[in-house]
Structures are given as structure tokens and as C-alpha cells.
């Protein structure tokens, strides 16, 4: 059932997100081609600026839409009229939350990959990139071994883990706020926003309290870096679990469809 739900969510989201990312890649490819054949030298500057502006806006729009799509989809698919269909299929609420979370992670990763690929494609030709790659890895490795006594790949793995967890924790916090918002009979979206603001304030208050309690200001810079990495990892994990449990409780025991 979970697999079916994930497939459904991916299919639904791909309708919007796939063409968007395909368009970005296509525009980048055209841009790279224009740079490679030096056609840009014959285009008026104003025109070039407009093309760049358009491209930049497309890139920003893609990133923004990708990060908010699943939050919107979570609300629309589960708490508007479509919720009448979704909540009457024989699937427990944790599967709905998991499925939406998986879809969100997948698209955020695809989105990041597309953006990175696009930037590299515009900055370097393929030959330049292939030459520069070993040098880049060396710099990264020097940076991370200096601060964390870890090999570069280990550090990259850790960063990836933290990146994934940060997607999860942000997504689940939004999901939880939507589930709180739906408890109200009116102004449900407004209530979700207010819940999000209160949650953000509470989390930052508690985290600064903890930071002060452990004495972060007296740490050396390398201890501080290690500490911030580990605390980020730990807090994301704990918060994700809490948000998931609360959201699941609200959907399974406090569902209140209009």
C-alpha cells in the first residue's frame, strides 16, 4: 500500500515538476551551446541581460516550486475535497505522511542535482570541468580533514545526511502545522501559518537555550564546527520524530475535513 501511495504521489507531482525541471535543463543546454559557439558576442547586451534574467527567474521559480510543492500537495490532497477520497482508501495515516515525505525528498534531491548541474554547465565546458574535478576534491578534502579529521567522502556523506534530514524536518514541520490548521473549522490555512510561526519561535528559543547551556561561545572553532554538525544531526532527528508522531496523531485521531 505504501508503494502504491508513493507511486501515486510521484505521478501527481511529476505533472508539474517534471516539465519544470526539463525546461530548466533545456534552457541551460541552449545557454551552454550559445556560450560554446560564442554566439553571445553578436547579441545586444540588453537582450543578453533579459535572457539571463529570464533564465535566473526560471531557476529560482523551479527551486521555490520544488520546495513548496509537497507542502501544498499535502494540504490539497489530504485536507480539501480530495481528502474524502484519500482518507477512505484502506491506508493508515502514517503511510500518507511517509509517502508525501518520500516524494518531497526525492524531488528536492532531483531539484538540487538539476541546479548544480545547470550551474556547472554554464560555468565550465565539459572539458574544463573534467580537468578541474580532482583539484576540487582535493580542496574539499583538505578543508574537511583540517576541521573534522574525516576523509572528504565521509564529510560529504555527513553533509548529505544533514541535507536530507533538513528537508525532512522542514517538510514534516510544515505538515504538522497543516494538520494543526485543519483542527480549526474556519481560517485553516491562516491557522497553519500561525502554528508555523509559533513553532519556529519555540524551536529557535529552545535551541539557543541549549546552545548557551552547553557553552558554545567558549568553544574553539574546530570544536564548534563539529558540535554544530552533530547538534544539527541530532536535533533534526529528534524533531522529525516528534513532528511525525504529532502529525500522525492529528490525522488519525483528530481529522476534521470540511
Amino acid at each position, binding site marked *: *500500500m505504501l508503494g*502504491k501511495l508513493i507511486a*501515486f504521489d510521484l505521478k501527481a507531482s511529476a505533472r508539474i515538476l517534471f516539465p519544470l525541471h526539463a525546461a530548466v535543463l533545456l534552457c541551460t543546454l541552449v545557454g551552454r551551446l550559445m556560450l560554446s559557439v560564442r554566439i553571445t558576442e553578436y547579441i545586444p547586451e540588453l537582450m543578453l541581460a533579459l535572457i539571463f534574467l529570464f533564465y535566473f527567474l526560471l531557476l529560482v521559480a523551479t527551486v521555490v516550486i520544488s520546495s513548496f510543492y509537497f507542502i501544498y500537495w499535502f494540504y490539497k490532497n489530504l485536507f480539501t475535497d480530495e481528502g474524502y477520497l484519500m*482518507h*477512505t482508501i*484502506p491506508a493508515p495515516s502514517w503511510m500518507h505522511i511517509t509517502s508525501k515525505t518520500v516524494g518531497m525528498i526525492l524531488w528536492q534531491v532531483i531539484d538540487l542535482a538539476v541546479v548544480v548541474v545547470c550551474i556547472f554547465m554554464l560555468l565550465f565546458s565539459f572539458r574544463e570541468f573534467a580537468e578541474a574535478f580532482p583539484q576540487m576534491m582535493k580542496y574539499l578534502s583538505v578543508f574537511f580533514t583540517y576541521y573534522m579529521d574525516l576523509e572528504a567522502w565521509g564529510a560529504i556523506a555527513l553533509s548529505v545526511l544533514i541535507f536530507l534530514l533538513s528537508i525532512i524536518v522542514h517538510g514534516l514541520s510544515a505538515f504538522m502545522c497543516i494538520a494543526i490548521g485543519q483542527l480549526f473549522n474556519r481560517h485553516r490555512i491562516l491557522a497553519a501559518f500561525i502554528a508555523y510561526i509559533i513553532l519556529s519561535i519555540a524551536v529557535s528559543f529552545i535551541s539557543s537555550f541549549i546552545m548557551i547551556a552547553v557553552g558554545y561561545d567558549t568553544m574553539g572553532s574546530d570544536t564548534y564546527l563539529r558540535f554544530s554538525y552533530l547538534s544539527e544531526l541530532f536535533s533534526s532527528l529528534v524533531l522529525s520524530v516528534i513532528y511525525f508522531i504529532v502529525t500522525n496523531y492529528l490525522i488519525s485521531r483528530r481529522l476534521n475535513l470540511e
Partner: protein
Amino acid sequence: MSELLTCQNLCKRFDSKYALAEVTLTLQRGQIVGLLGPNGSGKTTFIKIINGLLVPTEGSLLINGFTPGVETKRQIAYLPERTYLNSWMKVKDILQFFATFYDNFNMDRAMQMLSDLRIDVGERLKTMSKGTKEKVQLILVMSRDVDLYVLDEPIGGVDPAARDYILHTILSNYNPNSTILISTHLIADIENVLDDVIFLQNGQIALHATVDEIRSQKGKSVDELFREVFRC
């Protein structure tokens, strides 16, 4: 006959107002039950509780011995009073959706009914009229083989000819062990198919009787009795 649905002292409160108050009733298998009452009498609230879309404030509800949850959702086919179809889907997409998520969905029956009502499976739901969407939704629901069909205002938005077809469909697809709970204002149209009626008034059961009892004891049709009980 055996019990399919039982509820004891079922209450649902919104803020300080009771939408359902101390509803206690039993539905047997193999019946067509009319859930009748004016607007705001608690019909939809009751139906949402049966389908697990609302959680009761007090009291208990059991379907096949289970409280509303994954197990009961498998055995209930629910037609809400609103359109729940994703507008970007085509009819064949929503058919696929039902076939994927319900193991008791009968695709052949659905295709037959769609062709009887001349609905194109390639058509997008977005471009359909409200009445056609309602027909599609009803076909989806009636194409499942389940113990309990819950139809909230199933014939409100469709024309009388389609209404006849739909009632005929409901009756001809209906398995003798299943129960159909129909909520409607259009009592006269469905009176002849009902076995039992439940009158809801201000969240409470005003009457729960068989249609035969109403006719023989009160000497009235259900429609006449309804107009009398709920006179404004």
C-alpha cells in the same frame, strides 16, 4: 440477518454545539436504509464518522466488529456529497486509482456502467458537468463489492432519467448480504426501494422503523410522514 453496524451513545460536538447526540442504533445486513432529515440534522456528520473522516466525541461505533479504520475502509464504499475527484485526472486514471487501492473494485462492472451512460473514459474530469462527475463517482462506488455502501445525497445533482438508471444500478448490483445507507432529501424518488428509514432531527434519532411499519401503522407514505415530522 446479522448486525453490520452498531453504535452506542454516539456523540459529536463541534465547539459547544452537538451535531450528533446519543445516537444508538443497529443496521442489519441486506437492507437498504434511508437516512432522512432536514439540513443540519447530523446526516453527514454521522456518515463521516462511519467513514473515519471524523472521530466521535463520545460513544462507540462498530462496523463488522471494527472501529472505523483501515479494516472498515476496505469494506465500505462511500459516496460523499461533494466531488472528490482530482480535476486533472481522466476517467481512466480514476478507474486505475480505484483498481489500485481497492482490491474489491470490479473494473468490468464500472466499464459497463460508464458505457451505458455514454461516458468516455478518455475524458478529463475537469471538462465534465457536475452531473456527469456525480455519475462517475457513483459508478466508482457501486463498482466495489463491499459490505456497506454509504451514499450521501447520491441523486441530488443528476437528471431524472439518469436518476432512474442509477437507482436501477444500485438495486441490480446490490448483493443480498450488503447494506446500503442512503441519505437524501428526495424521499419520494427512493421510497419504493427502501426497507428501513431513520429520521434524524437535531442530531438525534426521531424515528427508526421499517417502511412497512410506517405504511401499516401510520397509514402514510414515508414522504408524507417526513413532511409531517419535519414541518417548518
